[in-house]
């Protein structure tokens, strides 16, 4: 087991190393930030001066080594635009993204699993068919378009909810959160729905497919034959059996939702990390782009690593298969 963990850990470290090179070179191949950070009215002298200030006059490998050296000390560099450490910049906006993502993934999971189980349990009822139709829509309709319609309906026409931005915040454990305040919560509703819709469709499908397969298995047949009530069957057997894939997907989705929040945050002007990265791409603030991508890669490598470990714990065949 220990050997398996070490092997997977080394693999993860290797992947991170490769990712750092790819991300660094990739981002540094995008345009020339000088043309963007300095105004078009600037003279050649000012231009050269700026290039020197940003360290862009050094060769690429030297820039990478400096970056790597700093990275190993936990320093991801300073933003070109704000001249403050990138980690501080991202850290300051992480709570906004986190609360949005958590609220939408959790509500999508709770609602999606409930609806999905029902649709799988009574597949021919009209309710199930409606649920599935909604899930096809949720799956198909591009999320930015849903965002537009939500704004048009609830913010512009009805005027019930704010069109964008983050509301009032309170400090809890030294971090600013907006969901506990009335004003803050009203701001979070629309973007959370927008972000949740795709996940909801996915959870419905997952839960429905799982339920349909499990309901046809012998376990359920025996349970029914043994005279257990339908409610007990659902609770004891079904939920238990479908929970494993759902938890896996929940973990994976948490990560991808963090990334997908880019679109929602842009539409709703939500001051989170996703908005930051879009803005940074716009102004080619390289350190922020690199740091963000490396952090996302790190997140995914970590999630994969943890999932591998969990599977290995559950299923001994995995670790034998991997080490052979």
């Amino acid at each position, binding site marked *: 087991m220990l050997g398996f963990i070490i092997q997977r850990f080394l693999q993860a470290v290797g992947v991170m190393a490769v990712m750092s090179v790819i991300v660094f070179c990739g981002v540094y191949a995008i345009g020339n930030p000088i043309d963007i950070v300095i105004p078009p009215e600037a003279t050649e002298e000012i231009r050269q001066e700026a290039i020197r200030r940003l360290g862009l006059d050094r060769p690429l490998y030297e820039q990478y080594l400096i970056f790597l050296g700093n990275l190993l000390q936990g320093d991801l560099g300073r933003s070109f635009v704000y001249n403050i450490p990138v980690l501080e910049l991202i850290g300051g906006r992480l709570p906004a993204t986190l609360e949005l993502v958590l609220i939408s993934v959790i509500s999508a999971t709770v609602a999606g699993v409930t609806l999905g189980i029902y649709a799988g349990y009574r597949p021919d009822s009209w309710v199930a068919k409606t649920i599935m139709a909604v899930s096809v829509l949720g799956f198909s309709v591009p999320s930015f378009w849903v965002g537009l319609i939500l704004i*048009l309906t609830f913010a512009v026409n009805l005027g019930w909810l704010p069109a964008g931005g983050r509301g009032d915040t309170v400090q809890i454990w030294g971090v600013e959160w907006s969901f506990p305040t009335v004003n803050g919560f009203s701001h979070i509703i629309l973007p959370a729905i927008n972000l949740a819709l795709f996940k909801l469709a996915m959870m419905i499908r997952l839960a429905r497919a799982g339920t349909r397969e499990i309901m046809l298995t012998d376990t359920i047949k025996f349970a029914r034959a043994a005279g257990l009530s339908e409610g007990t069957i659902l609770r004891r057997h079904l939920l238990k059996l479908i929970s494993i894939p759902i938890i896996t997907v929940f973990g994976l989705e948490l*990560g991808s939702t963090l990334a997908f929040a880019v679109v929602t945050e842009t539409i709703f002007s939500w001051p989170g990390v996703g908005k930051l990265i879009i803005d940074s791409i716009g102004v080619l603030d390289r350190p922020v782009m690199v740091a963000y991508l490396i952090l996302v890669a790190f997140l995914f490598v970590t999630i994969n690593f943890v999932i591998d470990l969990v599977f290995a714990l559950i299923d001994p065949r995995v670790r034998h298969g991997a080490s052979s």
Partner: protein
Amino acid sequence: MSGQSTPIGLFWAEFCENKIAVFALIIVVLMILLALFASIISPQNPYDLANLSLMDSRRPPGFVGSGGYTHVLGTDPQGRDLLSAIFYGLRISIQIGLAAGFVSLTIGTTLGILAAYVGGRIEALIMRLVDLQLSFPAILLALVIVALLGQGKAQLIGALVAAQYAYFARTAYGAAKAERGKDYIEAAVATPLSTRLVILRHLLPNCTPPLIVVATVQIANSISLEATLSFLGLGLPVTEPSLGMLISNGFPYMMSGRYWISVYPGVALIILIVAINIVGDQVRDQFNPRLRR
């Protein structure tokens, strides 16, 4: 079932049992036709500047413009007839979706089958890469690549391919791997049949059904992803608007009540994507033996 006995005939007959799927298929075909014949059926060529008049700009649906005909869906800020712009936009969106879909299909299938057939280190390398990429969100990857390559059709397709080929590779690999393990392939490999024949005759046909399913879904995804990128300002140039670009151009006018500029292209986009997905769903269900009762 009817007397048709060929596999395709049976498949078709089963497909026809689902009325919604048939309806969706008709819509998809209709939209492709609209895109193909956009230049004939559109009341106006929205890209010919000599045809446009600024005096007609931002008019609501039903306005009779200086061209003498009615703008059924209104006009955009440049005085373009929105209906025509949607037809032409449909053409660009479908083009990009199909192109990205087929290129990813080719690259992905090749990699997947190669990994399954060759095995060993190459297999491990390819599949590790594919798995890693699959866990990474496609939208983010496409975003960075578009930023990297710059604006333009080819660049956009490149980004979409990079974001999507892994799905095809995974699918082809899964199907080919399952088939590779079977005795008859082992036997075929042992005989002096050429590698190409083994792959073409035995591996590829077995990969086809799941690949068709993935392809339908991915084409719909490409179209949606392209629209999203265009909306974020990273897609095509404004003067060559896809549906996503039309939506994006009209977005600022939403607050002042001129909804049609953005809403109608959006409706067209959604009908297209939903229809493709419904067709894809039905095909998937038919290929999935476990759900057969």
